[in-house]
């Protein structure tokens, strides 16, 4: 079991360094959903990078005492080090468009004194639908209800919560909320 998994200044400083290095990334998965108010639990923070070879990632890692472990035939790419153990690298998001297109669905969420790019809840739901693992199915109702709650209180119809948005090739990215 990993220790000290609660998000502390160490983890925050890694995200801050990534932003300072202008690395193109976004928080995805259930940690992104939690940041947007979904009542879920998660063991790690998934980071989706546009390009894992960006030198800024290595520099950010060095500053927080972490390192990058490249993928092997048996293991995915990983971060190693006390300040970055909490982060998982995502190389592909099932059911979504390419990173560049999904950037249109990113919200800037305040995390202390800075803001981090977070994939919108509706797109996280789309990805979970596409992945369709047992653990994804278990959490789907919570995510959808959470999205509907926020939608109803904004008094705007919640199309994403009613029917799946187009995904994959040719999918048109949703406009960011004004």
């Amino acid at each position, binding site marked *: *079991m990993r220790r000290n*998994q*609660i*998000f502390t200044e160490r983890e*925050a400083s890694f995200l801050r360094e990534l932003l300072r290095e202008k690395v193109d990334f976004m928080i995805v998965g*259930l*940690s992104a959903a*939690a*940041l*947007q*108010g*979904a*009542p*879920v*639990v*998660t*063991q790690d*923070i998934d980071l989706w990078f546009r390009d894992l070879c960006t030198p800024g990632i290595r520099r950010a890692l060095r500053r927080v005492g972490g390192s990058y472990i490249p993928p092997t035939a048996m293991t995915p790419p990983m971060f190693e080090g006390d300040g970055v153990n*909490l982060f998982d690298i995502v190389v592909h998001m099932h059911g979504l468009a390419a990173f560049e297109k999904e950037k249109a669905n990113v919200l800037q*969420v*305040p*995390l*202390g004194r800075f803001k981090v790019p977070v994939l919108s809840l509706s797109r996280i739901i789309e990805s979970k639908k596409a992945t369709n693992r047992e653990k994804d199915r278990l959490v789907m*109702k*919570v995510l959808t*209800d*959470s999205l*509907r*709650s*926020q*939608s*109803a*209180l904004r008094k705007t119809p*919640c199309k994403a*919560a009613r029917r799946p948005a187009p995904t994959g090739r040719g999918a048109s990215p949703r406009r960011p909320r004004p």
Partner: protein
Amino acid sequence: MHVSTRNVKSLCRKQGLNLNQVLDETGVSRNAYYTIARKACVLPKSIVAIADRLGVSPLDILEDPGSPNQRATRLIGEVNKVKSHYPEVDEENVRHTLLLLREKPIDRLRRALTHAQKPDIH
């Protein structure tokens, strides 16, 4: 914006209490109460200055979170509103979402990560 001792006394009378009882129950010393009551303005100067600059009363920039009962009533109202839009939603999910939305994003994240470490929480 000052404390009206007359209003306080009047409210005490209406509720069958005397001022000493109220101060005892709330843990406010008579000294502290009368110190505040003597002040011409109980609000911080910064709040008054901001309100002045905006040309409004300080009350206009303050928000009353309400009593626990009022907050609970408001929450139930919001849950019902969501249910009226989406009858199929689970009330627990809605209630938890609305409560989490009152917290800062970083606290929501910490909560999600902390709970994941506790196998006895479902």
